[in-house]
């Protein structure tokens, strides 16, 4: 789960990472109501998950009540804006960068820091960035961070504040089950005060069970999107729609799903929806998978490629048929390739409902069968 800046900064405060004073304005009405009480000049920052806010005019300096109202209207007119964070203007003396992220290659968390923060941090030469393996980071004491910063020339009050912020950021990473945390820029203000001007935090959805407070955040559920995406999320399905495609792929497992999409593509079809049903799927979720795939814009036919491993062929077949019954006589063409646990029962249910079943054939054969069914339909 990626967090809005505003939620990220709330967590920063909890861990003693200083951030500018700010007020969250959720609607254009809030701007009208609160604008008189703000102190100017201040910064209006659109709260949204996508990046590139600066370039899109979604971060604006406002100097008066009138400007605030105008900026508020402009920002709320944009799509996917979840609010405005109105923050005090911090004079930027120097920009640093700090992050903790998972290094997949080493399979350990890595600490990253550079004294050259700001917009172009991604294009910095590798040697300008300190990278420290951080697997044991939860146990790092203050001096470890000091010794990381000293070679970079940080001294005095700035050194001590920055080391404390890094230690707190490390604690946050472990205690909050974060997948990545990033402060860019970490700013040194005119009065030699170090503060996080931005907050990019991604939390591990898998750890939601031990962080009930996450549900209270504005960011919770934002990634689920709207419409079919949200319905898929509710049914615990992983769903991606691909504009311009016409074949819906439903698979158990990401690898098989992608391989099935690849097969559609290699046979000249265009994948338009991808659903991974995951493990231990229930009949109702399977029915939802079929419905969501067929209701995706542009979908003309479905290829269902599922195994009975951690799933059960009988339950999946029942789910498919449940949605077919909802469709009535105008069924979307579909081919089901399924084998594994309880395959005989699953096949019987599908065949009893006139569903073409690929039992021993390959994925390629299943794709060819579906594409020929679609061609026939086009011919008629």
């Amino acid at each position, binding site marked *: 789960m990626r967090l809005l800046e505003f939620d990220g900064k709330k967590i920063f405060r909890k861990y003693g990472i200083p951030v500018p004073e700010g007020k969250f304005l959720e609607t254009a009405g809030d701007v009208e109501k609160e604008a008189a009480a703000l102190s100017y000049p201040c910064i209006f920052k659109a709260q949204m998950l996508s990046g590139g806010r600066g370039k899109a005019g979604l971060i604006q300096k406002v100097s008066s009540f009138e400007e605030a109202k105008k900026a508020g209207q402009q920002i709320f007119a944009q799509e996917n804006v979840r609010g405005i964070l109105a923050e005090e203007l911090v004079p930027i003396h120097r920009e640093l960068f700090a992050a903790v992220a998972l290094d997949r290659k080493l399979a350990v968390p890595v600490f990253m820091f550079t004294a050259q923060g700001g917009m172009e941090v991604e294009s910095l030469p590798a040697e300008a960035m300190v990278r420290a393996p951080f697997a044991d980071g939860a146990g790092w004491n203050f001096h470890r961070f000091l010794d990381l910063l000293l070679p970079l020339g940080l001294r005095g009050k700035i050194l001590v504040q920055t080391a404390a912020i890094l230690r707190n950021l490390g604690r946050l990473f472990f205690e909050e089950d974060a997948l990545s945390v990033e402060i860019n820029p970490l700013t040194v203000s005119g009065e030699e005060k170090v503060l996080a001007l931005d907050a990019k935090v991604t939390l591990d959805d898998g*750890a939601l069970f031990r962080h009930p407070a996450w549900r209270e955040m504005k960011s919770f559920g934002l990634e689920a999107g709207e419409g079919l995406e949200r319905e898929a999320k509710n049914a615990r399905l992983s769903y991606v729609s691909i504009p311009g495609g016409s074949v819906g792929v439903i698979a158990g497992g*990401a690898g*098989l799903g992608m391989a099935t999409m690849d097969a559609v*593509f290699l046979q000249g079809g265009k994948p338009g929806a991808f659903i991974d049903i995951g493990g231990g799927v229930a009949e109702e979720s399977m029915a939802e998978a079929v419905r969501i795939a067929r209701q995706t814009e542009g979908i003309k036919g479905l290829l269902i490629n599922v195994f009975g*491993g951690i799933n059960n062929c009988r339950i999946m077949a029942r789910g498919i048929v449940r949605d077919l019954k909802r469709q009535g006589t105008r069924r979307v063409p579909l081919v089901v390739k399924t084998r594994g646990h309880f395959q005989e029962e699953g096949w019987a249910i599908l065949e009893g409902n006139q569903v073409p079943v690929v039992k021993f054939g390959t994925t390629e054969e299943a794709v060819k069968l579906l594409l020929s069914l679609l061609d026939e339909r086009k011919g008629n």
Partner: protein
Amino acid sequence: MAILIQRDTRIIIQGITGSQGALHTALSLEYGVKVVGGVVPGRGGESVHGVPVFDSVKQAMEKEKVDGSLILVPPSAAKEAAFEALENRVPLTVMVAENVPVHDTLRIRQLAKTLKLRFIGPNTIGIISPGKTKMGIMPGFLYREGAVGIVSRSGTLTHEVASNLSLREIGQSTCVGIGGDPVVGMNFIEALDLFREDPETKAVVMIGEIGGTAEEDAAVYAKETGFPKPIFAFIAGQAAPPGKRMGHAGAILEKGARSAREKMDFLSAQGIRVAGKVEDLIAFCTPFA
């Protein structure tokens, strides 16, 4: 031979009284797996399909010789269960659950490394040495005994490839699902090292996907160490749209990462024979039937 698990491997199942635990105990027994016990705290003294249930791994190990533990508990209980198996020095632990918190996997992985024990998963189908035994949730009848080793990041693609081979009488020595998460225990390289030493394995199929560089690292390692058997690879995700997380797994085409096509080219350059489509693996493996 086969790797990791043999006919006489004795396993326990942690979480044996749950719905998945009980079902896969029955299916494992049917396959001939030596399931010598189950572990569920508070349920000691019961039995599941004739298998005795113990309150703790330690208690099970006092009664029975245990070579491995198959963990079939939900993700919220996964870390505790894995730590229990590892701290009791169970030589091989397999964790099936998906959606295990990454920080938990990191800690489990660390402990397994420190104690020099094998940990496989999470988000895996497990391991099978067809015709001998299995430690996992795969349908045994899709797999057939033979000479091809399989190591895979994707569970259901392993079913797919193995069943394609089995239906054409091309058997497998051992199939290892290493798990689809961004961080897992055993990796491709460790599995390749085991296949290297196994006389029964004549060729290895490596099944990968977009995301990360595990396949590339394994390819470089195989080349540098002169891997003595042919390696065939398939990479899923040629048609995946960039930036989207495809499924529950770690499969995402990240900024700066290799696309499926680039991964395939990289593997080819290391001397690995790469399948353009998953069915190509059938032809590649036919000489090893």
